[in-house]
């Protein structure tokens, strides 16, 4: 992909983000932060690439460490969001 194609995706995604986030109810702003935390750990993709590549041992170990950190965030973030969302109940529910 060339740079302009990637930039286009990025800019359009910013607009999507803008409208989607404004539609989030303020009552769920804390779960929003927790879940954005979890999904921003998609950086694990980069960590996996580094960890899987042979050749530079330094890069590989840094990659593995990044995999651990991102995994803490992914599992912790989704789990704590799930836990919070389970608490929101309607009257009589």
């Amino acid at each position: 992909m060339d740079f302009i194609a990637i930039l286009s995706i990025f800019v359009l995604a910013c607009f999507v983000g803008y409208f989607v986030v404004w539609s989030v109810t303020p009552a769920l702003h804390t779960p929003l932060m927790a879940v954005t935390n979890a999904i921003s750990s998609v950086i694990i993709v980069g960590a996996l690439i580094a960890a899987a590549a042979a050749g530079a041992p330094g890069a590989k170990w840094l990659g593995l460490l990044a995999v651990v950190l991102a995994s803490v965030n992914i599992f912790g973030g989704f789990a704590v969001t799930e836990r919070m969302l389970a608490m929101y109940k309607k009257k009589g529910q």
Partner: protein
Amino acid sequence: MCQDLLLNGTIYHCGMDSAPEEVRTSPWIALAYLVAGICFILALRGLSGPASSRRGNRLGMIGMTIAVVVTFITHVPTWADPEFYSVPYGRDYLALIDWTATLEILAAIALGAAIGFTTAKRIAMTAMPQLVAAFHSLVGLAAVLVAIAAYLNPQAFGIADLVTPMIGQPFAVIDPVSRVEMGLGVAIGAITFSGSVIAFLKLNGNMGGKPILLPGRHVINMGVLAAIVALIAYFTRDQSPAVFWTITVLSFAIGFLLIIPIGGADMPVVVSMLNSYSGWAAAAMGFTLHNTAMIITGALVGASGAILSYIMCRAMNRSFISVIAGGFGAVADTGGSQAIDRPWKRGSAEDAAFLMREAEQVIIVPGYGMAVAQAQHALREMADRLKEEGVRVKYAIHPVAGRMPGHMNVLLAEANVPYDEVFELEDVNAEFAQTDVAFVIGANDVTNPAAKTDKSSPIYGMPVLDVEKAKTVLFIKRSMGGVGYAGVDNELFYRDNTMMLLADAKKMVEEIVKALG
């Protein structure tokens, strides 16, 4: 296209470090990352209401699983090798797999999962702001590590060209555009990390909430930021380690310097801002890796944090710049001393119980103090008792109540308060005038009428809850001495219709429950 490479004394055998080129650039792979990105968009979309939110969260998990699995099978050697699947039946498949890489990665994920799950399960809801800050720091650090790994092994990330000079060894030249992306990734990641660590220490109470003001901090900060930008520009011309490491070190330093002057009351903005940064860091790395899932996610998270910061700033009537500049709450205790002698009324739990039982409608205004005292469960019990007596009970939430956006809503939800009894400032503010009792528990600045009348007040212009319009205000506070986080005295205490309930919030509410019988 593919040849062996010698870099930093290590030989890279072609085809050894990852899957063949045609597998990694297959349109199916790009499509899978796009699906992951769409799952993340829908995950946030689900949060538009509590009913759809759980499904949204599941979609987020699905998206993450897709991204991880696809990366794993396309990058761990042999898994994605077409030869691996075309070998004649009967051959030992298992022997062909790179078990070392596979097991190392699975072990790393398992370790992270164990830590993540345990933390998520054990954490008290009152400690959510700290937890989120800690999680932000991990995203930041992971981004830094990935950027460093990409710098050390650019071939694996497909961002370098091999150059064979006339004399000497062939070496990898990182694509200049990738260098900018990498530089931005490491810088934003490092700022997110060190900033979040400071935010965590402040929120967790390991560090005082008061702003720490260094002399000439604005000059220092601007200088360091300018140096980082200049170095990233220079990095496109010179990819030497010295430049890269200087960018990294300066970025760690600026994250630290930017957050220490910001006081405890501004932490909701800081946490949101760092949330935004963690997104931009992921996006920068997505640019480096040409990965749509990362770019979409980075943009979503970046936008989310930015919007939350904006909402928090608006709720405090402060500009983003003034929050970032820091120092708010440092000039405290002016005017508090002469105000202490003004007359005020003190009430008991029995008085409060009597007033509320007779009321038609009670609006509860919770704040950070409720979280500190862990009073949410007792509060819900009190509300239940009142409802049995035929009283209508509502909750009013100011956007900056607590230490992070939506903090109060989560605590009330934890205590089984139905979310349709909880209202935002703009939806409930007009109702105070027709309300018999406003019950303020652990909130202070967000109820201060001075924000509407006193132009000299530091919180002038901030939207506040009109609690003083209620027939009676019951205000729980530990003692009359303290001031709110803005460091200003609250006019509300001395009004004729205010009754101060001086005690620990939880104890007071429990006594009221007892008095209600």
